[in-house]
């Protein structure tokens, strides 16, 4: 293993050098919302537009062929990154949200029926909740939820009971964007399969932060977004098992997703293009590929280990602040996300004062209102960490939090 050199990594991210508010350096602790981008990702997209821009899968000219090769090359990289057997099992989408909506609207519409049980959890991001609520309303599905314990883990005993009720689908978040909890996905998927259910994993926070293999997980569908893993916005992916994708009806209709069209009918294209209607985000997909290259070059295991050390240290230091409470502090396994509350100080005020100190954190419900209801708080502040954050930044956070407490005391 090479030595993890965070200073060298930081040099790869142009934005980390900027100053905000009169000479205050940026401390970016909001990577869970969106990650910053290394120069290699920005340059890959720039290079595409300067030297290779053409529409894919249609032309026979030089640029069209070159663009197609780059786009499909990016798909192969993303597939390899998540341990998928075949690139065609990776569908490009706009983001994790669209990936989940795709499954709900195609597999869900085609194969779920009135009265069918869908198991979700209390810690879902709205993107793995609302699509199923919409489908449940349309089809009359039954939704049940695995509760979250006070420690911040999923209640596996309740999950086991729910599994006895013949569920058709189990969908859950791999790593919570609020609690940082890393759920035991492999074991949960194995149990769900034994119960005969199809499994959907929201990998929006797991894929960016540690090595995830769809083969090892044995999952049916997994959704994730490029922008949370150093890539651009506007592109994400859905992994789907080939047999399932083959049986699913298309999602949107239009160009590229068809093989043949007559006035009254069409034949869908083969995988993966069947699900990619219209001209896609070509530059962004290529940027996605560059992001995966960057992460792989550093190594996901090293990144995970570094982040683990950072977050452990941050938790210890933050707990020295009187009254500060961390949501899901005792979760069995947790990643680099710390959502916290300070007594009598609203998260908006915390975030605003931290911002004046150059620190970017998120305040609110982080698109997980039911989870905040579960912990009976309207909102929280969230600091999240990624491969480029440093121990000094954590110290700056803690000193600034002390200032916040002082202002309100």
């Amino acid at each position, binding site marked *: 293993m090479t030595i993890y050199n965070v200073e060298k990594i930081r040099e790869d991210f142009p934005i980390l050098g900027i100053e905000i508010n009169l000479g205050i350096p940026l401390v970016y602790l909001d990577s869970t919302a969106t990650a910053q981008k290394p120069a290699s990702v920005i340059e890959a997209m720039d290079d595409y537009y300067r030297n290779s821009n053409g529409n894919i899968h249609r032309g026979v000219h030089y640029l069209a062929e070159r663009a197609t090769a780059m786009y499909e090359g990016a798909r192969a990289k993303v597939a390899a990154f998540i341990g998928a057997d075949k690139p065609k099992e990776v569908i490009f989408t706009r983001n994790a949200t669209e990936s989940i909506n795709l499954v709900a609207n195609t597999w869900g519409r085609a194969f779920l029926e009135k009265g069918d049980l869908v198991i979700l959890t209390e810690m879902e991001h709205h993107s793995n909740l609302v699509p199923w609520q919409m489908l449940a309303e349309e089809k009359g599905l039954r939704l049940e939820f695995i509760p979250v314990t006070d420690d911040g883990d999923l209640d596996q005993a309740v999950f086991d009971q729910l599994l006895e009720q013949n569920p058709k689908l189990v969908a859950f978040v791999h790593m919570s964007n609020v609690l940082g909890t890393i759920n035991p996905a492999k074991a949960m998927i194995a149990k769900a399969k034994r119960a005969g259910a199809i499994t959907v994993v929201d990998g929006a926070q797991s894929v960016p932060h540690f090595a995830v293999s769809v083969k090892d997980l044995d999952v049916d569908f997994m959704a994730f977004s490029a922008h949370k893993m150093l890539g651009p916005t506007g592109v994400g992916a859905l992994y789907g098992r080939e047999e399932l994708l083959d049986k699913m009806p298309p999602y949107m209709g239009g160009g590229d997703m068809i093989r043949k069209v007559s006035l009254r009918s069409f034949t869908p294209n083969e995988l993966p293009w069947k699900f990619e209607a219209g001209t896609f985000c070509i530059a962004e997909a290529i940027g996605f590929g560059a992001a995966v290259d960057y992460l792989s070059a550093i190594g996901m295991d090293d990144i995970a280990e570094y982040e683990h050390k950072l977050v452990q240290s941050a938790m210890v230091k933050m707990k020295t602040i009187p009254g500060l409470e961390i949501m899901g502090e005792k979760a069995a396994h947790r990643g680099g996300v710390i959502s916290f509350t300070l007594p009598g*100080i*609203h998260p*908006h*005020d915390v975030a605003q*004062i931290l911002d*004046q100190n150059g620190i970017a954190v998120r305040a609110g*419900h982080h698109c997980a209102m039911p989870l*905040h209801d579960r912990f009976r708080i*309207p909102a929280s502040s969230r600091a999240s960490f990624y491969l480029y954050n440093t121990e000094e930044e954590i110290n700056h956070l803690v000193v600034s939090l002390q200032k916040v407490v002082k*202002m309100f005391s």
Partner: protein
Amino acid sequence: MDDLYREVIIEHYKNPGYRGSLDPNDITFEDENPLCGDHIKIDLRVGEDGKVTEAAFDGHGCAISQASADLLLESIIGKDVNEIKHLTKTDVMDLLGIELGPVRLKCALLPLKILKAGVYGLGEATDDLLEDGQA
């Protein structure tokens, strides 16, 4: 540097003069900003002459929204209810004396929306209420 949290805002947040509720009251209205969970209820008592005699707010939220509610109620005591209908965003910003970005602006303006919805007897506190006149 911490000018957003001027002394006056922290002071009104920590020691509000108008926190509480009035029962009975002549006008009451409550609403929330679901994005951040701020929730405010405003009660008013109005005299024979149509002027506000007493005002109180209750609820929870950030310092900006709570201080804005307190300052706003302080400013309307003795005012004719019809005058309240003409209060706008600018009046609130003058009371607070700070510049706010779009997200925090919503916090600052929530009390005014609630106050005007109550005064107009509307079912909902909409953004239209931040302008002058009837929504």
